[in-house]
Structures are given as structure tokens and as C-alpha cells.
């Protein structure tokens, strides 16, 4: 298959990217606004094309544990869900982080808490970046702002997941999942052969052969001193992610007097807001964190020059990423939040009005 352009929904792009990335298995359970991922995969019948297994599990709990089982065999496994379903997956995600297993988890966020709404939200930021499941762990969180990135972050997610032997989350939302855009699809990559898996993931449970000790996948160590060593090992891994994997994008920040910080679909809106503000003569720039963990703290701090008079963090939540922005810039810089909730999307005009009210005027 050659590179090709298609008009696709964000959810479909994720599904197509999973096939093309050479994923071995997708395990999921329907929930709006991401059911198209499973539907697309079922319709495409990748089992016939690449041998990829696609299975509708009985629950999100089962789905993530299928991912655990598959990942333990060194296979590239992916699952997707939306907020309430991701809460159910959190047990499994913690186990996978503890057992050092790679996988990609897609969260097409909707407004919460609880059953909430089926409309888009960004209120799972804390859950994604600060743990969510129990215990000391982190995962790389990639936040696409377009259908193109929704596709591109799937192979990137697998790459990072295997590099660090850790779950990676793609944190998108109902806007990006449901909107249609032009997407350039990358070429089909082959699935790993069993020989490649044994070579590249020698830790995997592929069947104990006489040339090696048995492989055990577990997150348990009843011996506290060993468990502490394990947690320190994980900590060092998370620090490596912070050193090597920070990704972000800036937009018109060079001469900016005001900064907007936003991720995902909020960032798309803020980009428009920057244009409108600039047309009015207000020097606004935008910083878009692409990795929410590791967070681009240094970049934000560096961009907060003496010229910058204040920062507005725009999120579809009550104020979650703003805590990381405040930590990044320290005291003395005015940082305010503008949020819409319950599935309501902020408009560029509102955003500028809020910038004027909370930062420029205030």
C-alpha cells in the first residue's frame, strides 16, 4: 500500500493507523464517542490482510486485560475507550505499568464525571497524566490536535511503548474523534514475526525454550526491598521519558506579550483565537503541549520571557493542566484559566474575551 490521502474521522484514522502500524491485536468495548474505532476495524477485516486480531470484549476491564495478555507475549496491542471506560481500564493500566508492558490506549474523552455527557471534554487530564490507576507510575500521554496526528500518534505510541516497556496513552476527545479531515496515511508496516518478537522482546512469554530461563510477567514482589528497587527502576525510566520525550508546538510566540496554553482540540480553537487577536493588534502566542506527560515545563518556562504579561490556560475542564503550567512558570507570572464544561467547546471569540477580562484587563 502506498501513501495515500483520505478524508476520515479521527476515530477511523486511529483504527486505520493501527492496522498500518502492524498492530497484532485490538481489544475494545463500545462507548460513544469512540465506537467507530471498533466498528471500522471489524468492517476492514484486518485479520485477512495482516493477521491482526480484533475482538469485542465483554467489558473495558476484560479488554485491557486482553491487552495485558497479548503485550506479555511481546505483541503490539491497542485498545480504545472513552472516559468512563478508561476508568475501568485503570486497574489494568496500573498492572501493565507495574509489569513493564508496552501498549497503546486511546482515550477519546467525553465530559464527566460519572456518565457525564457524550459530548467532548478534556477532563481526564489528571487521570491520564498523574496516574489514574493505583501506585507510582506514569505513562507517556500524546495529545493529538488533528485527524492527521490521530493517525500518526498510533505508530509513534507503539514505538515509545516498546522503547520504554510502558503503556502509552493517546488522549484525544470527541471533537477530534468525530470530525473529518484530510489525512495522509503512512504505508502499511509488516507485523513483527515470531522470530523478531523473540529477538526484540526477550522478556516476553513466548514459550520457555531450553536456551533460556522461564519468562515471568508480574507486577508482584512480596519482598519490600525488591519492590522498592523495582519502583526506583520505574522512576528512572519515567525520568528518562522526561529527558527525551517532551514534545510541543509553538505558534506566534516570538514577540508574544500574552500566551495561551492549550492542548488537543482546545489548541485548535486557540490557534484561531491567536489570529483574531493579532488582527486586533494584541500580541498573543500559543504553546501546545503534545506530550502531556512528560510535560513541556522547560519550554513553557523559557517562552515566558520578560515581555510576557500573563498566560491563559484554555481547557475543556475545571482547570487541570493549569497546575502544570503554574509549576512551570513559578510565582510572579499571572496564570489564569478559561474552561468550558459538560461537552461545550470554547469559541475563539470567547477565548479572546476571557484573555482581555482575566489577563489584559485584570
Amino acid at each position, binding site marked *: 500500500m502506498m501513501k495515500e490521502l483520505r478524508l476520515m474521522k479521527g476515530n477511523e484514522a486511529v483504527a486505520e493507523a493501527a492496522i498500518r502500524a502492524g498492530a*497484532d*491485536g485490538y*481489544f475494545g468495548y463500545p462507548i460513544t464517542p469512540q465506537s467507530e474505532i471498533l466498528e471500522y476495524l471489524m468492517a476492514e477485516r484486518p485479520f485477512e490482510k495482516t493477521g491482526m*486480531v480484533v*475482538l469485542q*470484549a*465483554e*467489558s473495558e*476491564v*476484560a*479488554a485491557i*486485560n*486482553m*491487552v*495485558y*495478555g*497479548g503485550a*506479555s*507475549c511481546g*505483541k503490539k*496491542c491497542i485498545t480504545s475507550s472513552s472516559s468512563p471506560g478508561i476508568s475501568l481500564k485503570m*486497574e*489494568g493500566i496500573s*498492572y501493565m505499568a507495574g*509489569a513493564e508492558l508496552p501498549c497503546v490506549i486511546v482515550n477519546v474523552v467525553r465530559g464527566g464525571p460519572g456518565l457525564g455527557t457524550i459530548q467532548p471534554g478534556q477532563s481526564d487530564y489528571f487521570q491520564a497524566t498523574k496516574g489514574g490507576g493505583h501506585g507510582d507510575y506514569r505513562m507517556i500521554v500524546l495529545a493529538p490536535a488533528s485527524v492527521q496526528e490521530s493517525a500518526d500518534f498510533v505508530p509513534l505510541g507503539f514505538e515509545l511503548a516498546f522503547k520504554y516497556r510502558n503503556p502509552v496513552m493517546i488522549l484525544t476527545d470527541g471533537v477530534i474523534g468525530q470530525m473529518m479531515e484530510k489525512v495522509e496515511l503512512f504505508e502499511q508496516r509488516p507485523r513483527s514475526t515470531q522470530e523478531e518478537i523473540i529477538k526484540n522482546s526477550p522478556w516476553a*512469554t*513466548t*514459550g*520457555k*525454550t*531450553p536456551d533460556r530461563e*522461564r*519468562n*515471568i*510477567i*508480574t*507486577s*508482584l514482589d512480596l519482598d519490600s526491598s525488591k519492590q522498592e528497587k523495582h519502583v526506583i527502576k520505574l522512576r528512572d525510566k519515567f525520568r528518562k521519558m522526561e529527558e527525551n520525550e517532551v514534545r510541543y508546538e509553538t505558534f506566534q510566540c516570538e514577540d508574544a506579550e500574552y500566551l495561551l496554553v492549550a492542548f488537543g482540540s482546545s489548541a485548535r480553537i486557540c490557534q484561531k483565537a491567536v489570529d483574531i487577536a493579532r488582527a486586533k493588534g494584541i500580541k498573543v502566542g500559543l504553546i501546545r503541549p503534545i506530550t502531556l506527560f512528560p510535560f513541556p515545563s522547560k519550554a513553557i518556562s523559557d517562552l515566558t520571557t520578560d515581555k510576557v504579561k500573563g498566560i491563559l490556560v484554555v481547557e475543556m475542564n475545571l482547570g487541570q493542566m493549569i497546575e502544570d503550567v503554574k509549576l512551570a512558570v513559578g510565582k510572579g507570572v499571572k496564570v489564569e484559566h478559561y474552561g468550558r464544561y459538560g461537552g461545550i467547546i470554547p469559541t475563539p471569540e470567547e477565548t479572546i474575551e476571557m484573555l482581555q477580562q482575566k489577563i489584559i484587563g485584570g
Partner: protein
Amino acid sequence: MTREEIIKPENLVYKRTNLLVDRALSYCPGCGHGTVHRLVMETIEEMGIQAETIGIAPVGCAVLAYEFMDIDMQQAAHGRAPALATAVKRLMPEKYVFTYQGDGDLAAIGTAETIHACNRGENITIIFINNGIYGMTGGQMAPTTLPGMRASTCPYGRDTVTMGNPLKITELVATLPGTYYVTRQAVHTPGNVRKTKKAIRKAFENQKLKKGVSFVEVVSNCNSGWKMTPVASNQWMVDNMLPFYPLGDIKVPTE
């Protein structure tokens, strides 16, 4: 006769299977878990499928099963072993895949995973140790605890009105089209050990036939949880557990 004169290869009638790691089991003396571990490992050794087998350990007393079984193993979250096994088998259909689970694991928190893996007819083997209690966490009531039976969370005996009835999960999964072979065995006598061994062997052999789940329940004792000696607990099991959980095949392949 001296010890050396007795211990000779020609006098050996039984030996530890090579697939059981040479270390002390973490189970209480007299507990059925140890015997069933041995049977599963003997089966894999006899079938010569060590390199083809992936085992899934539960939580509960068998949480450390991977420490004792010399095969590749995965340790699952409480109750989720059938979900792991589903993916392993789907992604590596040529391998032998089994779960090893207690009653709390399989019939309480993992009921959904158990029922659905069985109903989908996953081509796996499920070994289910039913001791009617939560052993590891200190003897709390299990879904399989008998009416009137004492446990730390039903110290006056299980009252079915307020605590519900014991769950015959094995009979339940036998009704599902996805199960191929369902049997209930025990390991309290040499005769029963041999029958259980046969059942386990059959359950593994069935994976070659690709017909669905083979489900082997082993009714067992928990002398610590039941607060009895191993001998007394086996007797109690015969007198109380076996009338409620009768031994024998529940579903056998028709062909």
C-alpha cells in the same frame, strides 16, 4: 537396609517432575494447591509441551504459581486470567494456554471474565481450585462457601438469606455452548489424584481439537482457612463439600 540401599533408581516409583521448580512451595502443608501444581506440570512434561505452554496465575494463594512452574507465565489481576488467556491464545493459537484460579478469583471478581471466555469458546484450559474460602487473605467467605459454613466474614456461618447462596459456577459454565469439557475432581486420595490427572491431561489434549474451553474444577481443602488439620479438613471436605459439589464429569464431548 541403609538409606543409600533404598534410594536407588530401580526402587524409585515416583519422582518430582522436572517442570516443578526445585524450591519449597508456599502452600500450607496438606493443601490441595501443591498436588494440583504437580499434576499440571507432570501433564506438560509428559506431553512435551514446555516450550509451547503459557500459564496464567491468579491472585490468591496461587499468586506465586509462576515461582514453581518452570514455564513462561503471566500473573493476572484478580479474576482477569481468562481475559489474558483469551488474548494469548488468539495471538498465538499454536500454544497451549491455561489459567490456574481459585474460587474467589474465578467465581467472584472474575465472574464476567470466566463466563464470557467460556461462552466465546476460547480454546483454553481453566484449572479451578474450589476450596470454598479465600485462603490467601485469611479465610473470608467465598462465593462457593457452603450454607452454614464459617469464615472470617461470616463467623456465625454463611446465612444464605443475607449472604446469598453458594455459586455452582462449574455447572453454570457447563450450560454454555462455548465449553467443550467440564469436570469436577478432587485430590484428597491417590485414586482421586489419578482421576484429576487424567482430567487435566484431557483438558490440555482438547486444545489440539480447537473445540472450546476445557474447565477442570478441583474441590480442595484449605486447612488453614478452615482451621483444621490437613486430615480433618479432607474429611470435612468429603462430608460437607462433596455432597454439595459432587465429583464427576459434568459435560463431556459427544464425538
